[in-house]
């Protein structure tokens, strides 16, 4: 036993949530914050589609419309999709590898609060003179001072702060997965969701610096009079596009790989079979991640790079279809010969397969540069990326949430509401986005706040808007389901789905230390291996002993608050405020460095009291 085995003061209520460094609680924080931003982004989408329901409508003005599309994209990608992915990664990855927490619990909390304050900063723009309005890609020149308002400053500073949080979160998961695996949990025994999280974290590590560089340059152009992107002063407008997409394309895989991981877990569990072609799935995941960095310029075929560059990037993009196809067929063959059950989680997973296949198909079509000259920046592209991000990622996230909800919250989601949730969302989704393929080919550019009557675009837009109501109902049903589950007194069992991986070997929700004894992993699908060997639970790699736990801390919250304050100082050119914010942040860093925080221990007798064997 260690010399500093003192208990930290137990905090409760709000103070507990503000100070927690427990990966499970941080996962829930990510889910709540990401969920709220998802609702905001969804509301923006609803307004966008209402404006486009009929030609030449005046529901909202042109400028407001541009603010809505910008905030919809920015919010959904950076503030909703990524955090909900981080929610599941936080809640599940340490459990899947048999760890008691992530490698750096303090940094984990810091990552969350940075994301949170960055997101809040961007959204305060609505109340402080108008939201950013240059699109989520924020292309310079439109994003320069001469052509757009104050709102872009919120985008530039908010994304830098949130991006820092994502970057350190990614690094944390890389270290966690490399270092914190339980004995026997070799790389090639890791569940696919953990593998996907690992590759995604690697992509974050290399992709986020690129956008940070772009954002810093744009910040200098906007706030300090530089001219990186201003052609009148010798700048170049295309550089922003390269920096943005060197980040932006890997970002697509940062989003979709975790969904692949979730689908692999869900399909395998509910088919009662091990994942077909596990090693090729791992290989395909890594290959997609690698190729993802080689293809950014396919977002720029019409920029004027010339036929040689266009062709090379086009062919490289087509290659990604091969590992993606491998995944689809492996899922199909996983189900082949199984005993498939259809709880809501698996409905979303099965619904994912055709939907994502369509998104992938249009992706290959888009990889043909001469044809892309027609698709580019039209509604065809809007349809394509919503098939990938909603039909792929969001379906995957719903599958993951229905699957892991009992593990995260200790309550089961209601299956009847769940089925309604799936069908309304699924049908609404296809109604919304399927016609958009044709709208684009029929000549409708994206990001238009209206379209003229008599150009043949009325019907598609009308159907598309109707579909949004289905998705809205689906989302509301999910909220209802979460509320019903929270109110229910029925506890979820430890292993409600006849699971195969380690997270199902411990109670739902797990105790703060996760595993009273570190498990010994004896093969792929560690828990399934023990079930097949006739064991009741895992074999342990260590005797019951004292467990070292980290203390909670207010510092991550305050550190992020400092940057939040400094952000406003920069935007309003008030350097006193910048100074105050920076002093807060660096002061917290200093405190963290100087003050020794050894954590505390949980003794074996306490473990018994808490009823680990439950």
């Amino acid at each position, binding site marked *: 036993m260690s010399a500093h085995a003192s208990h930290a003061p137990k905090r409760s209520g709000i103070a507990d949530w503000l100070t927690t460094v427990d990966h499970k609680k941080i996962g829930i924080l990510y889910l709540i914050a990401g969920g709220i931003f998802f609702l905001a982004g969804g509301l923006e989408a609803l307004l966008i589609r209402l404006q486009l329901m009929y030609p030449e409508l005046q529901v909202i003005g042109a400028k407001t419309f541009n603010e809505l599309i910008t905030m919809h994209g920015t919010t959904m990608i950076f503030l909703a999709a990524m955090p909900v992915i981080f929610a599941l990664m936080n809640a599940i990855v340490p459990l899947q590898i048999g760890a008691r927490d992530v490698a750096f619990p303090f940094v984990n909390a810091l990552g969350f609060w940075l994301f949170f304050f960055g997101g809040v900063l961007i959204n305060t723009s609505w109340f402080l003179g108008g939201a950013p309005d240059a699109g989520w890609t924020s292309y310079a020149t*439109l994003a320069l001072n001469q052509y757009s308002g104050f709102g872009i400053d919120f985008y530039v500073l908010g994304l830098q702060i949130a991006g820092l949080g994502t970057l350190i979160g990614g690094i944390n998961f890389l270290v966690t997965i490399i270092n914190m695996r339980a004995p026997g949990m070799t790389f090639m025994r890791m569940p696919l969701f953990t593998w996907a999280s690992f590759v995604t974290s690697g992509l974050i590590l290399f992709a986020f610096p690129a956008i940070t560089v772009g954002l810093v340059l744009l910040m200098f152009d906007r706030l300090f009079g530089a001219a990186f992107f201003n052609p009148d002063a010798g700048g170049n407008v295309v550089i922003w596009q390269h920096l943005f997409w060197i980040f932006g394309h890997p970002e697509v895989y940062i989003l979709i790989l975790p969904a692949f991981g979730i689908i692999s877990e869900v399909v395998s569990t509910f088919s009662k079979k*091990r994942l077909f072609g596990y090693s090729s799935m791992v290989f395909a995941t890594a290959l997609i991640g690698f190729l993802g960095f080689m293809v950014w310029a396919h977002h720029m075929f019409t920029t004027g790079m010339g036929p040689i560059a266009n062709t090379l990037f086009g062919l490289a993009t087509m290659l990604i279809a091969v590992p993606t196809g491998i995944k689809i067929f492996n899922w199909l063959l996983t189900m082949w010969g199984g005993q498939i059950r259809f709880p809501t989680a698996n409905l979303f997973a099965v619904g994912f*397969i055709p939907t994502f296949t369509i998104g992938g*198909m249009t992706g290959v079509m888009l990889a043909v540069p001469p044809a892309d000259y027609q698709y*580019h920046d039209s509604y065809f592209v809007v349809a394509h990326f919503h098939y990938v991000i909603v039909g792929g990622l969001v379906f995957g996230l719903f599958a993951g949430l229905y699957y892991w909800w009992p593990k995260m919250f200790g309550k089961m989601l209601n299956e009847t509401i769940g089925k309604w949730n799936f069908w309304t969302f699924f049908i609404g989704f296809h109604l919304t986005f399927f016609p958009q393929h044709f709208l684009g080919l029929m000549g409708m550019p994206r990001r238009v706040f209206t379209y003229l009557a008599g150009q*043949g675009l009325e019907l598609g837009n009308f159907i598309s808007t109707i579909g949004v109501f289905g998705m809205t109902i689906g989302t509301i049903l999910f909220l209802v389901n979460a509320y019903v589950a929270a109110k229910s007194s029925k506890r979820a069992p430890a292993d409600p789905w006849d699971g195969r991986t380690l997270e199902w070997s411990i109670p739902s929700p797990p105790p703060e230390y996760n595993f009273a004894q570190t498990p010994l992993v004896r093969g792929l699908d560690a828990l399934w291996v023990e079930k097949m060997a006739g064991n009741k639970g895992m074999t342990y790699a260590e005797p019951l002993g004292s467990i070292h736990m980290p203390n909670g801390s207010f510092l991550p919250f305050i550190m992020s608050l400092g940057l939040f304050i400094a952000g406003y100082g920069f935007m309003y050119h008030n350097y006193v405020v910048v100074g105050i914010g920076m002093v807060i942040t660096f002061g917290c860093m200093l405190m963290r460095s100087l003050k020794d925080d050894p954590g505390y221990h949980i003794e074996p007798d306490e473990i018994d009291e808490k009823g680990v064997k439950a």
Partner: protein
Amino acid sequence: MKSWQQSWRQLFLFGLLALTLSGCGMKELSALQPQGPVAAMQFDLMKLSASIMIGVFIVVMLILTYVLIRYRKRPGQEGIPKQVEGSHTLEIIWTVIPFLLLIVMAVPTVTTGFTLGKEYNKDEALQVRVTAHQFWWEFEYPDLGVATAQDLVLPVNQKIQFTLTSADVMHAFWIPALGGKIDTNPGLDNKMWLQADRTGVFYGKCAELCGASHALMDFKVDVLEQDEFAAWAEKMKGVQSAEPAAPATANAVQGQQIFEKSCLGCHAVAGKGGKMGPNLTNFADRQRVAGIMPNDAEHLAKWLRDPQKEKPGNNMPNLNLSEDQINSLVEYMSTLKVQEIKR
């Protein structure tokens, strides 16, 4: 699983319905009804890649449907399914076949890519310089000494070599019926060629978000017989190398005076005027006011009353004209014809 299949059938029917009801869009606007060789080549590539992809989709759906029906858990079913690790044969099949399909697509992709990437000199193609502005289009024919705006006039069956740039933010130049788009980047020149196979009016759009009125940055393409085009260009050149002509009626003369005082600083007519706004030499020949409204007295007056209301964020200020002034201006501007273009 009945509801599952039903919803797919509904989806499929709905897709067909959407397609048939709306056809393939308007032939003036749709990329699905190509009116020139560039759009035709692009449409061929779309059909090729779409067919291959739909083939793959059908295979996936057949396997999925079979699996979902055949291997769903039946009531009372017990036991553990065989835990299959994988199959090298299958893995190789679904790696190699997609790869071969991609090669089928890659070959025309490369050849078409380079065909469309060609640049033609002035002996091979009509040279047109396009400059995009918030939120209108400027067209110059450097070899003909002609400049116009908003309505791009082109000869049929002749290659057109565009050189494109922007005066402010990035825009993208797109005439779906004639061919795919290219960005106009401030400070840089881009090249693209197109050709129209038949005469008529085609619709052009800006495809890159460029500010509040991005959605309203439409233009028209008037494709004329080659001799008609030559006559038009000759006439334009004559008008643009002379002083603006005096109109016939007194009201229009008054309009011209207002125009010279309030408008000529930004808008050129004939050989005179600024380049801040669209050249109006042949304004009355054009299809639309400001690219969006029908070109008639009523809509022109509406535009002159409050340009910001019709096209938010554009660079034309509200001139606070009286109704009399507007009336005179409208009458004057309706005389700005060069040659009645056959529709």
